[in-house]
């Protein structure tokens, strides 16, 4: 019998959270292709977009900045929903929840691991857009990075949440068009939101991606941190935390 009593489970334990994050990153290290795709595809898309709008630099500015916020959201959504689903179906989730692991530890661990990957992804994409593709940002690129990171967190949160409703990888992937595409259409990427049908504009007002894109556009047009920017980023962050909490509620220690 062990002579020492291990620490009991608390709502959030730093050691267990970092152990989980390290484990998720270690899993990714054994899967270099996924990591390469996650990091390179957004860069490639931006590169492509730059030359699609070869004749109109203004359009590239606006769409490029919006996409810098959207890419991390989509990637993290996909990766998290599949990773969490695998955790559920492989039985490791049940095993972890029978151990002294707090649900918060697991979620924070995932958020931390994918968040750090999102930093790398966003930093590369932002750097490429601003310094090589001539994306004309009036504000600080650091603010772009901040919004991108919050978007990644939101994507992680949404992915975690929907994975509870997917019984297979097929279903999980189909949640992407169901959850992400409507937001993509309504976030103001294609048309300014105030030019949409009033009903759609109202819907877009309650979708978090709209605020992510708005925040990006604030950075694009203003040198200073505007109040609108602060409001938008706070909304994105609050949404991410809310959905993370909902995701935690879907992790059940006892299942049928």
């Amino acid at each position, binding site marked *: *019998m*062990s002579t*020492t*009593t*291990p*620490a*009991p*489970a608390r709502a959030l*334990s730093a*050691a*267990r959270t970092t*152990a*989980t994050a*390290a*484990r998720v990153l*270690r*899993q990714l290290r*054994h*899967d270099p292709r996924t990591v390469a795709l996650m990091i390179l595809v957004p860069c490639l898309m931006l590169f492509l977009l730059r030359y699609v709008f070869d004749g109109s630099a203004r359009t590239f500015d606006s769409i490029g900045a919006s996409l810098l916020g959207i890419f991390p959201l989509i990637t993290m959504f996909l990766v998290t929903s599949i990773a969490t689903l695998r955790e559920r179906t*492989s*039985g*490791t989730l*049940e*095993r*972890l*929840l*029978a*151990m*002294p*692991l707090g649900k918060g530890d697991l979620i924070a661990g995932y958020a931390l691991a994918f968040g750090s990957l999102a930093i790398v992804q966003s930093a590369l994409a932002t750097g490429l857009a601003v310094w090589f593709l001539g994306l004309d940002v009036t504000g600080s690129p650091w603010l772009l990075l901040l919004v991108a990171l919050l978007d990644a967190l939101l994507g992680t949160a949404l992915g975690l949440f929907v994975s509870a409703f997917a019984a297979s990888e097929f279903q999980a992937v189909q949640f992407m068009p169901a959850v992400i595409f409507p937001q993509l259409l309504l976030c103001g990427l294609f048309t300014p939101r105030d030019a949409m049908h009033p009903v759609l504009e109202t819907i877009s007002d309650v979708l978090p991606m709209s605020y992510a894109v708005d925040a990006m556009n604030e950075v694009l047009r203003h040198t200073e941190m505007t109040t609108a920017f602060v409001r938008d980023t706070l909304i994105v962050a609050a949404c991410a935390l809310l959905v993370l909490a909902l995701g935690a509620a879907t992790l*059940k*220690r*006892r*299942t*049928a």
Partner: protein
Amino acid sequence: MMNYSSRPTEEPAVHAQDLTVVRGPRTVLRGLGFTVPRGQVTGLLGPSGCGKSTLMRAVVGTQAKVTGTLDVLGHPAGHPALRTRVGYVTQAPAVYDDLTVRQNLDYFAAILDPGRASADRRHENVTRAIADVDLTTHADTLAGNLSGGQRSRVSLAVALLGTPELLVLDEPTVGLDPVLRRDLWQLFHTLAAERDATLLISSHVMDEAERCDRLLLMRDGEVLADDTPDALRTRTGSETVEAAFLHLVDRAAAQGRTKETSR
């Protein structure tokens, strides 16, 4: 012979009374009552689908819709205090295929016993658990590249971390060759004798029943017998536990028929 009789005052590892579990429209366990004594290997035997896994999930506290009394190591099943004291191995190996054997164990060890201060103890525990299941030469192989039997041994090693007082093993020897099966049963008895662990092991292979100190025979969500293998054989006048089980099944079926007709 019964080594639990030397500690009569100690409560049993598991005590169930009127234990009922409902899954969807089905009542999987119907008012079970049994005890699992400490420091012994108790076998949970019965045909596939009789409710063995559900019973084990109830004991470790991952099963929903459990009613009745179910006490584990002095706490209600699923109590947070039990999470470091009970080790659980599911039927399908629950490990990360994209991590090596050691990385898998390192992670679960960090969950059971977190913090930098216990890093040395964790390392020892992990090395010992890998040796216990005879995977030392495969410690740095990805779990996904191992054979089915090897992966289930990784899963078993996870449950051995942290020296649990109660080990709940769901068909741990399925698909293993005879040599490995013998070695694992030796390990189970060593765990009970030397580390004072209680083991609850399910199997649908009756010849494994002979290796247990005590048996719970299940059929159709009910416990048919709760006894030692010897007592079972004597009571039913059978040569083997398998024959004893069949005898009990037939008797239960006959009783069921008389109940039906007398209604």
